[in-house]
């Protein structure tokens, strides 16, 4: 038995899991319906795939949620995991699940996949015969991903940076890298048997004033870390920035650079997809305004040419959406995509070159690090502040970069911290910023955070 296989045995041998039958699971994956694979869907459909978020504690409620989504015309189903499971606290998750089942109220903010187990969960996945995407935010997702794939969930979101810096205060970074290395390997392993398991990075980060240069660099890095372990179907992503042009520029550059870096690293056979998240920041309280914001995001997604769109709901400012509100958003987005015709191909050469140079510069700084492996280079770069995420709650995050919006709504770098971008690029960014006489930067930032409200 290989070392890796031994590690897997240990991981899945847990008092909260029923025994893992790896042989049976491989057989299941080998024979699984192509319809369960988003990688297959991407390969065979030109339509932008519509995917909401969502998960409930009990099997029945998720089942009903999926039915609702299906009748709204969903393309990809989500499975959002509860926060105890995210923190590997399966005991609490079990207790809360039991309470939820007994009292018919939700005591968890998602589906405790480990407690339900793959044998049960698989029934649902096979029943709906639709690709499912695992949404979690777990630094140590090893057992979760084993269970997900065994259940028939063939897309795994996240990554060592994007599921850590925005989601955690002090989880050790090096551990996150190693745990995710395991996840990549498992995904690569199962990809041999049938269509590829798709991995997706989480580009929205903290969803607040993220400069595209940072988002894109992180997307490319997580893609490379994944491809290095053998994954061959990967989605890079980002979220609506608040400026249409900036979204278009980000999409064009991200598509180009992701391909370039994948090829340079020798992964010419990897399929790369683009995912667009509707506005991830603070939503308006008015539900009709939220609808408008959602539709606007859909139009932009179509303009940037995304392969998949991840939807929000009119309840966003309030709380976890009801299944009805969630399905309504899916139906509206599908309707909007259906009526959008004759979209122009847009580009902005100057901005694209500018962004490309910044991303390349960050990538060079990372790749030039002395360490021997890519993940260590990245780890060092984060510690050195070459990479950081504005509004990350994590203690290791440099917290030096400051961004504000220019008059067109583009997010610009006001203070570059230790970001290794060329001086002239930084000057260009600064030149775009207009701070009205007497207005302090913080006031501007507060205003900029709330632009959709």
């Amino acid at each position: 038995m290989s070392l890796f296989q031994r590690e897997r045995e240990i991981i899945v041998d847990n008092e909260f899991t029923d025994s893992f039958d790896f042989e049976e699971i491989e057989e299941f994956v080998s024979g699984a319906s192509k319809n369960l694979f988003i990688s297959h869907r991407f390969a065979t459909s030109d339509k932008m795939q519509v995917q909401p978020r969502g998960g409930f504690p009990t099997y029945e409620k998720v089942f009903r949620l999926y039915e609702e989504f299906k009748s709204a015309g969903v393309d990809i189903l989500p499975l959002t995991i509860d926060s105890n499971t995210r923190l590997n606290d399966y005991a609490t998750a079990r207790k809360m699940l039991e309470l939820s089942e007994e009292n018919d109220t939700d005591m968890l903010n998602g589906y405790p996949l480990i407690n339900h187990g793959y044998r049960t969960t698989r029934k649902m996945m096979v029943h709906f015969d639709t690709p499912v995407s695992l949404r979690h935010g777990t630094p140590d997702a090893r057992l979760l991903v084993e269970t997900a794939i065994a259940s028939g969930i063939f897309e795994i979101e996240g990554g060592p940076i994007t599921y850590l810096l925005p989601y955690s205060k002090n989880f050790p970074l090096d551990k996150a890298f190693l745990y995710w290395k395991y996840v990549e390997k498992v995904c690569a392993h199962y990809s041999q048997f049938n269509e590829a398991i798709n991995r997706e990075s989480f580009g929205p980060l903290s969803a607040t004033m993220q400069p595209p240069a940072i988002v894109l660099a992180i997307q490319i890095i997580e893609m490379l870390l994944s491809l290095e372990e053998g994954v061959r179907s990967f989605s890079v992503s980002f979220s609506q920035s608040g400026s249409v042009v900036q979204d278009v520029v980000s999409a064009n550059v991200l598509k180009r650079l992701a391909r370039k870096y994948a090829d340079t690293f020798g992964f010419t056979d990897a399929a790369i997809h683009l995912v667009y998240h509707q506005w991830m920041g603070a939503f308006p309280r008015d539900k009709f305004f939220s609808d408008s914001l959602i539709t606007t995001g859909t139009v932009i997604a179509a303009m940037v040419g995304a392969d998949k769109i991840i939807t929000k709901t009119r309840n966003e400012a309030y709380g976890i959406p009801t299944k009805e509100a969630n399905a309504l958003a899916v139906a509206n987005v599908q309707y909007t995509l259906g009526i959008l015709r004759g979209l122009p191909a847009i580009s902005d050469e100057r901005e694209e070159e500018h962004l490309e140079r910044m991303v390349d510069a960050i990538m060079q700084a990372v790749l030039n690090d002395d360490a021997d492996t890519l993940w260590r280079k990245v780890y060092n770069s984060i510690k050195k502040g070459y990479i950081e995420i504005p509004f990350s709650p994590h203690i290791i995050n440099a917290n030096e970069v400051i961004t504000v919006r220019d008059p067109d709504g583009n997010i610009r770098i006001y203070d570059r911290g230790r970001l290794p971008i060329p001086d002239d690029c930084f000057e260009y960014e600064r030149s775009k910023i207009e701070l009205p006489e007497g207005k302090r930067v913080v006031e501007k930032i507060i205003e900029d955070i709330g632009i959709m409200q």
Partner: protein
Amino acid sequence: MRVVTGVVGNDVHVVANRLIDISLKERGFEVFNLGVNTYLEEFLDAVIETDADILLISSLNGEAEGWCRDLAILKSGYDIDERVLFVIGGNLTVGEMSAEELIPRYEAYGFDLVFHQVDLNEGLDILENRMRERLR
């Protein structure tokens, strides 16, 4: 005036917390910001350590009630000055619930001021007024 602040529980929503920090300082408070992912015990420890006048808790991800229902019991274990003002604000429930239903619950847990889906500065204005009244 000293304020201890932070986001309670497994909640990582840091944006409001950063803004609260700035706004409190601008209003002349001395701020001890424990950041996100802070547990009730840590808050109470900090109140005692810093001899704070106000404890201002945020919660955004809907978990607040689970973390705060034991406040009264916990308080009784500490030797906290009667005069410390307990404030909580943010998005205080999972799903949707009206403020009328929600505020009395949190008051019963031992909070003096409860702001459910109330804008930051609106809440801090009310807080300042309350503190001024006390001084009179």
